[in-house]
């Protein structure tokens, strides 16, 4: 009797070990977009995704961020690729910007990043310097990634430390999206390219009188940097430290910001805390503000949601041409832990160079970098998309220098910046004190991360 019980127990133990035991090799990858330590990305039995001859079925995972409209058309592009390449199945994973990065880091820890990921200049150093990304240059040499119609200056945008860690999906630039009708109704004149910060404040007063705001908020990471650049300096320096020496500029920017906040030109912070950070939620889109301080490639989505004619302007000056820079709106990277790097690169190539695919995307992620693609989609562009292309062309003429990408530790510095901005708005600290505090703490953070 006891022996029987013992044998039974042993059998149960074995069953339990197989049933509860972690990842089984060969099992199909489970539902994507989960945050626990992942199942292996692709189950291809022995296949290494070669393009030639008898093709094994492989699965690629592709992750990106965006709003609903971007998700919808990206899924269409994926379908198109799958039809052209029946042996490839692409599993999409998508989220809003903040959530996207929160998901990606644990995946990186588990060596379970998707094969192709959308990448941002804010994070490319963090991932690249930790060995997570593939250098695409060799695939470009082999011709798998066709760079023949891409000017080198656009490729440069995706390089860090000489290596091609991401390839830019589109070029964009800082822009202010404006509602001309609202401005005129408030008795103001629609700004031109030469407008200044003072002009902005004047408009703020007029809009307030009509119960409208200037804008929901101004993103400090982008616009403080812009402001410093317009004065000949920069937020970060190429060697990984702070890029400006004059704390007075920091104080100036925030004194003006505080003045505008106190006057009620912006959304109050307690209400802003509830925003979700997507275009659908933006105050200008909702009709409560006249401007949105944003990126050029968001013009199309904002226009579609706002359902009224909008204008696109460079940020206020003076010296907007010094402040502006062209940048990668977002790029695509292939991850080191991908088991099908060549297939992943082919998919990236599809995004960058395929004309039919780009006829679906139509520059929503930024003006495409391939000149062939630009030519091909031009006649198809909606008036809004054309406005963006023209704006980028104009900015291309204006810019005098490229922008330094955020160094490792940049994320922590930006958090510090936003914290200080919040304290300034709530009167807990003066702009001058904040300037000194920022310098002290940011320098410490960046120094720690350099070692």
């Amino acid at each position: 009797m006891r022996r029987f019980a013992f044998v039974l127990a042993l059998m149960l133990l074995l069953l339990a070990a197989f049933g509860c035991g972690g990842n089984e090799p060969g099992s199909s990858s489970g539902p994507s977009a989960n945050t626990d330590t992942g199942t292996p990305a692709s189950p291809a039995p022995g296949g290494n995704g070669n393009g030639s001859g008898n093709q094994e079925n492989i699965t690629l995972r592709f992750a990106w961020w965006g709003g609903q409209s971007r998700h919808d058309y990206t899924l269409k592009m994926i379908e198109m690729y799958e039809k052209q390449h029946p042996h490839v199945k692409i599993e999409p994973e998508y989220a809003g910007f903040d959530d996207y990065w929160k998901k990606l880091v644990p995946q990186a820890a588990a060596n379970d990043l998707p094969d192709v990921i959308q990448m941002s200049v804010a994070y490319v150093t963090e991932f690249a310097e930790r060995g997570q990304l593939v250098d695409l240059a060799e695939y470009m040499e082999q011709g798998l990634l066709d760079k023949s119609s891409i000017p080198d200056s656009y490729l440069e945008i995706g390089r860090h430390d000489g290596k091609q860690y991401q390839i830019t999906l589109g070029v964009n630039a800082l822009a202010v999206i404006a509602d001309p009708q609202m401005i005129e109704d408030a008795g103001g004149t629609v700004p031109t390219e030469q407008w200044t910060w003072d002009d902005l404040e004047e408009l703020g007063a007029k809009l307030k009188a009509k119960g409208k705001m200037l804008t929901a908020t101004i993103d400090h990471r982008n616009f403080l940097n812009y402001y410093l650049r317009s004065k000949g300096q920069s937020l970060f320096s190429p060697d990984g430290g702070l890029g400006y020496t004059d704390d007075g500029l920091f104080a100036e920017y925030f004194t003006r910001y505080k003045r505008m906040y106190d006057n009620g030109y912006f959304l109050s912070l307690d209400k802003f805390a509830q925003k979700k950070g997507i275009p659908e939620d933006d105050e200008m889109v909702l009709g409560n503000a006249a401007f949105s301080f944003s990126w050029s490639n968001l013009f199309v989505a904002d226009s579609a949601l706002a359902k009224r004619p909008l204008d696109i302007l460079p940020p206020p000056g003076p010296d907007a041409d010094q402040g502006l820079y062209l940048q990668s709106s977002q790029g695509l990277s292939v991850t080191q832990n991908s088991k099908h790097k060549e297939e992943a690169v082919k998919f990236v190539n599809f995004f960058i160079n395929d004309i039919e695919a780009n006829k679906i995307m139509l520059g929503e992620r930024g003006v495409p970098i391939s000149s062939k693609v630009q030519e091909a989609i031009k006649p198809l562009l909606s008036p809004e998309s054309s406005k963006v292309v023209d704006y980028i062309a104009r900015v291309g003429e204006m810019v005098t220098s490229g922008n330094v990408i955020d160094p490792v530790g940049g994320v922590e510095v930006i958090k510090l910046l936003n914290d200080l901005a919040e304290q300034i708005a709530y009167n807990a600290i003066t702009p001058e004190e904040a300037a000194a505090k920022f310098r002290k703490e940011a320098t410490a953070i960046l120094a720690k991360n350099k070692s």
Partner: protein
Amino acid sequence: MKRLLEHDNVVGYVYLSPFILGFLIFTLYPILSSFYYSFTGYNLMESPNWIGLENYRTMFLDDEKLIKSLKVTFTYVFASVPLRLGFALFVALLLYRTVSGAGFYRAAYYLPSLIGGSVAVSIMWIQVFGDQGLVNAMLGLIGIHTSMSWIGNPSTSLGTLIALSVWQFGSSMLIFLAGLKNIPQTYYEAASVDGANRFQRFFKVTIPLLSPIMLFNLIMQTISAFMTFTPAYVITRGEGGPLDTTLLYSLYLFRRAFTFFQMGYASAMAWVMLLIIGLITFILFKTSVYWVHYESKGEK
């Protein structure tokens, strides 16, 4: 060998082995690893590098946010736990006496504690306390017009989290109810024969006999309050704002680990929290001899 296999204990261990394996692999090993990581700098993508007590030193000497998060967490615990237990006891006493509809009320009060800690409820909470939410609508009904966002306002944001915790008093309430029902009626009868009025009966009979349960609830609720994460994370979108007034310790730990890629530091934070909870639990136990009455041990 045969005799070994037929030994009772061995069979027992074999039955236990799935759990023991699970414990060793999924609980003990990560705990020990985290202890190791707390002495390293580890950004998840490269291998850890040993830095000794550096993390701990930074935590106590160089990190304002950590001190702030400790203050916020302690405020949260010391406000929410007594309120929660207070409500639980109060409602339990009410439901103990009422006859009609008691079952319905029990279920109704218990329900929030079942679903309370979830993401869905936290999202709903934003709607309730937001600037266009339920609370403002109801205040409007009684004539107080405000468009303030309770969540976005630094003076009230922690209050909304405390309210969320207190709203989930149902589970403690049920435990109190069970405890109340365990008190033999004979004690109450004896007390009233001796001339005790309602208050005296409450303080001399109910409270002492309920005190072991109160201790149990107190310790469990305190530990879980220190570890609160989901509501704070969802309601503030991970920011711990405004002005860090809802930056609970666990939220700050998460940020250090997953936004700044500083696993070593986060591990050190986790161990410090373990020590804090351990210390407080120890204090609660030690002081419990002064107010907890165990029937089995007889009068002091």
